């Protein structure tokens, strides 16, 4: 008898239920139509940063001998492998002065959720560095102004003057960390899965002013050595 009761239970599909299915299927279709399928990585010509980064330009030349003690890569290797699709780490020397600048390019061709670039201030501090004098500055390079972030990272006696920028899709982002997500959304609205590049240079120096002048010079020389298409890969199109 109990079974009989169970069997007579019924909720047959009614108009509402069909409407729900229709509604859900249309959500699926609309979302499919709105989801970006093109990648900015291919749009700007599938950059290979190891190749386009010149080993010698202006007054600068790459230092290839082991420079242990001077270069410490603050990004943990594990995180680096997971987050970025391309990483370039070089040390350059200015021939005239003998001063050295460390260059680090970290590139991810898809800036979704868990694969987003890590900001240097977060990387350095998670490695035990103390971050001070964090600020933004506008510098003039290759006929446009670029917003760079600067900071001083200290650990023990080591003082590292860091300058960096982050390009997301077609431009460099500035302001609070949420700027990255806003830029990503804007790229999505334009129909692209966005990429992201962290361009970071640093010098071990106690003289902030001098270090910044040298770094700006480095950036200018570096970008000047690139073709317009390659410049766009570094600083965007704007």
């Amino acid at each position, binding site marked *: 008898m109990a079974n009989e009761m169970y069997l007579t239970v019924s909720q*047959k599909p009614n108009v509402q239920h069909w409407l729900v299915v229709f509604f859900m299927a249309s959500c699926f279709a609309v*979302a499919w139509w709105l989801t970006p399928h093109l990648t900015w990585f291919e749009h700007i010509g599938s950059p290979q940063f190891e190749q386009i980064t010149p080993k010698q330009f202006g007054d600068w030349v790459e230092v290839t001998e082991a420079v242990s003690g001077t270069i410490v890569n603050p990004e943990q290797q594990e995180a680096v492998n997971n987050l970025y699709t391309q990483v370039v780490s070089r040390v350059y020397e200015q021939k005239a002065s003998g001063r050295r600048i460390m260059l680090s390019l970290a590139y991810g061709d898809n800036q979704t959720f868990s694969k987003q670039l890590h900001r240097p201030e977060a990387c350095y501090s998670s490695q035990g560095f103390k971050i001070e004098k964090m600020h933004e500055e506008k510098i003039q390079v290759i006929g446009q102004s670029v917003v760079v972030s600067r900071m001083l990272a200290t650990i023990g006696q080591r003082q590292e003057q860091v300058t960096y920028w982050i390009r997301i899709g077609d431009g460099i982002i500035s302001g609070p960390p949420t700027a990255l997500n806003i830029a990503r959304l804007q790229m999505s609205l334009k129909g692209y899965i966005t990429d992201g590049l962290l361009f970071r240079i640093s010098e071990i120096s106690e003289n902030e002013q001098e270090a910044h002048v040298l770094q700006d010079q480095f950036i200018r020389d570096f970008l000047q050595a690139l073709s317009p298409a390659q410049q766009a890969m570094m600083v965007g199109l704007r």
Partner: protein
Amino acid sequence: MNTLTQTSAYLATARKVQTHFVSNSGLWLMFTGLLIMFLPTLWDLFVVNGIWVDDEHAHGPIILAISLWLLWKRWQAIPDLASFKPSPALAWLCFFLAASLYILGRALDIIYFEVGAFVLGLMGIVLMAGGMALFNKLKFPLFFMLFMVPLPNSLVGPIASLMKEAVSAVTVYVLSWAGFQVGRTGVVIYLEQYQLLVADACAGMRTLFMLEALGVLYLNLVHHQSMLRNIVLPILIIPISFTANVIRVIALALITYYWGLAAGQGFMHGFAGMVLFLAGLLLMLATDSMLRLISRRLYGK
């Protein structure tokens, strides 16, 4: 005779299953719709982004499985849908909310919107099938599903770095109290000649979520009547998971100190992760027993 009864028994079971599908076909129809919507999301989670295979969010599929199992269990206790009155208005509210989150999430690749939309969609289906009465019977599994939503880094990140600082500070305090030569700058701990970095994973955000989920599940399964235990235990899980983390970092520091760097980074690192989890669970159960005692003293039962 024997075969005849057997055959009829089989037939009865088959008929029962068939009728179940037919009698709840409205429900199954809506489930099919939800599945169409969220297959791409599942594909992203497991294959494209691999968030649910990542270490940090690997608890997602476990939570989903537990929730579905709970839903099924609770469903068994519900005899017939016909006695429930659907609430289409509330259901459509859920569906529209789910739709906007889903479309935004898909188009802009915001995974927590998508997963949140799935939970809302399921809520909508329940409301459409049996209204608030059915929803009340199934609310725990539905609520439990929220634990599988991957939280954004912008939210977890700051909390995690605070936890890291605090874990390092407490570790150094305990170790120096125990007589070790220990110091720290930020999240780097100096123990005699060793230099240990308290990494992101050591903040133990994942352990916190897992413990919190398990705690809530435990409370629900044992059916506590006492409000004290139901409210205080989930809150206490936060310091419990913190303590478990400190225990883990201390264990790793001591392993490194006595057996060298290789031991601290190799097998023992994974082992310490398990120790952390066990420590957390034991602490949780101990706290609950204590709360039970207190609540007995207070209310006599």
